[in-house]
């Protein structure tokens, strides 16, 4: 902004300077020409009357003439010539003018002599059959004009710089509220909901008031939403505790039940477990939304963490460390990360026909990062679904290819959320030879 203002000011002041100079110089030149012509006419009359008095030396006449120092006079008279200076003689006069005046018509002409611009004015002297020329040099005038040009240009530059500085200061002052507001808006978008504009700044007062009111409303709204999810989760915890405990009691007496009773208890147990996971995930994700996750970060070997996480341990899966990722360590909240691994494995079991491979791999061309991959041999995830499956309550691939109600949940959304708060990224891609390959990329701890 400042630069464009400065450029504009520079162009404008230069244009004004040149225009001023142009007008001034043409005015001065015209003035000088006019006065030269007038003076030449006066001098011509003097010379003519002097020449009519015989005996008066021509040169003395010339010397007696009035006129500025920078003019030279040339007189043609009685077929001879006389000149007031050695520089300018009849030969130096422009031919056309000389001839025209000798023929009896007055005239004037600009011409160059020795690199100087001059004006020659010729007046015929009919009474003595001669002619009077006055040659005026513009050298001094041009020097003056050059000085004038230099000074108006300098004034232009000074004006521009001053203008730029003032403009910069003024635009800063004018834009500062906007700059602060946009910084605050960015902070809020980044999740720092307690950001406010200082209300005591006079230049900001109005903006700050409405801005802060808006953020207050937004914050209340967001907190209410997060609190609602969290309250729902907490309210569900008590009945769920009762449900889970009594279901366990029933399951423990499975053998005492009839065939139908057993089937009912099995269904109940499975759904209570699912319900329990769902509520825990809901609480976890509402904590993430409210920014109250408080992570307990510890440094661990990624492969060891993966191999110890619930479903991996239960299925006795191996977790390979690919070359380049041997002993890779990460700084994570173990409980949360165990959930990440468990959810990925559970997802593979439900939608990919079981886990094919869990491995720790180097992050290709990205040093300082490491990947955990969970691969299955299922149908894979179509391109269009790859973002969506990490959304909350998105149905799995193909919608209803499951016999259970399980999975329409928060598992992958929670994976995504947890990995994000650990400074990592999650995505799914095609596994070589068919199937899905879920990748979690995390910053690694330098060895």
């Amino acid at each position, binding site marked *: 902004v400042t630069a464009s203002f400065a450029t504009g000011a520079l162009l404008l002041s230069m244009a004004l300077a040149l225009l001023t100079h142009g007008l001034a110089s043409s005015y001065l030149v015209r003035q000088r020409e006019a006065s030269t012509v007038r003076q030449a006419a006066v001098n011509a009359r003097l010379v003519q009357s002097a020449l009519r008095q015989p005996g008066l030396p021509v040169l003395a006449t010339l010397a007696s003439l009035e006129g500025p120092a920078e003019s030279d006079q040339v007189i043609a008279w009685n077929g001879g010539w006389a000149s007031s200076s050695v520089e300018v003689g009849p030969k130096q006069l422009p031919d056309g003018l000389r001839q025209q005046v000798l023929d009896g018509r007055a005239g004037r002409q600009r011409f160059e002599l020795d690199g100087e611009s001059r004006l020659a004015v010729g007046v015929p002297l009919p009474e003595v059959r001669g002619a009077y020329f006055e040659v005026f040099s513009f050298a001094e005038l041009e020097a003056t004009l050059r000085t004038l040009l230099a000074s108006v240009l300098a004034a232009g530059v000074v004006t521009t710089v001053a203008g730029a500085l003032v403009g910069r200061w003024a635009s800063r002052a004018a834009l500062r509220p906007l700059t602060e507001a946009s910084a605050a808006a960015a902070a809020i978008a980044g999740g720092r909901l307690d950001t406010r504009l200082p209300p005591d700044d006079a230049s900001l007062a109005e903006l700050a008031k409405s801005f802060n009111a808006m953020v207050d409303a937004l914050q209340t709204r967001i907190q209410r939403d997060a609190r609602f999810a969290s309250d729902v989760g*907490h309210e569900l*915890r*008590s009945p769920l*505790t009762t449900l*889970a405990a009594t279901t366990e*009691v029933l399951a423990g007496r499975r053998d005492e039940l009839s065939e139908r009773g057993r089937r009912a208890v099995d269904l109940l147990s499975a759904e209570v477990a699912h319900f*329990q996971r769902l*509520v825990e995930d809901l609480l976890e994700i509402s904590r993430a939304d409210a920014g109250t996750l*408080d992570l307990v970060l510890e440094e661990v070997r990624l492969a060891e963490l993966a191999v110890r996480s619930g479903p991996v341990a239960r299925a006795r899966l191996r977790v390979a460390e690919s070359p380049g990722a041997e002993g890779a360590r990460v700084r994570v909240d173990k409980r949360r990360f165990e959930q990440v691994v468990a959810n990925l494995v559970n997802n593979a079991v439900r939608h990919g026909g079981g886990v094919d491979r869990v491995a720790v791999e180097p992050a290709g061309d990205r040093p300082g990062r490491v990947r955990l991959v969970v691969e299955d041999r299922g149908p894979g995830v179509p391109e269009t679904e790859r973002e969506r499956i990490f959304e909350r309550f998105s149905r799995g691939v193909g919608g209803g290819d499951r016999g259970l109600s399980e999975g329409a949940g928060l598992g992958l959304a929670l994976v995504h959320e947890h990995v994000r708060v650990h400074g990592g990224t999650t995505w799914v891609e095609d596994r070589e030879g068919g199937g899905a390959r879920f990748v979690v990329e995390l910053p690694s701890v330098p060895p």
Partner: protein
Amino acid sequence: MVTSILLIEDDDRIRSALRLALEDEGYTVHEAASGESGLAAFAERPVGVVLIDVLLPGIDGFDVCRRLRQDSDVPIVMVTARDESQDVIAGLEAGADDYLAKPVNAKVLAARIRALLRRAKAFAGPGSRRARLAFGQVEVLPDDGVVRVAGDEVHLTKTEFRLLVELASTPGRVFSREQLLETVWGYDYFGDGRIVDVHVRRLRVKIEPDPAAPRHVLTVRGRGYKLAGS
């Protein structure tokens, strides 16, 4: 021997359900519906383990825990309605040995109780590693469950005591939180490291001359804790 559990929980249904489940696991369960009645029941008939719900009408779970701790080192498990740090730490600071977040899984709860009882018993029987441990002004008699600081006996809970004995078994060796959770609490890999931190803090208050600048139980940043070598 059948272990009895005192269950302090105000929600009738949860109390009944947990009672059924814990009885199935082989425990005798006594119920109390409020903090006051729980304290009274404990005074009348001591039990092996106390389970306290944090949210109780009247005096809350933290207070019940603190009052029990005044003259008993009975193993205490807090049942929190939420597992946010605040509640967990407050419960542990109040003197609980362990915590569980609702919804409580009865199998997990039973496993925790078994682990607590196991280590509580470890001091009752013989077979402790060393007869006497001493460092600075502190003297530990593992077999008798006695700790003296500058000659005066200091009362530690069973968990604090085990933690101290574990650290003192090899002075100078660094124990990670996981190791301590495994050996002292009987946890698997995914125990909560905050339990260790809070217990170390409580231990320091009891045995360090200046708990803010510990000389015996030292923190090794990013790795764990150790007892200063002699």
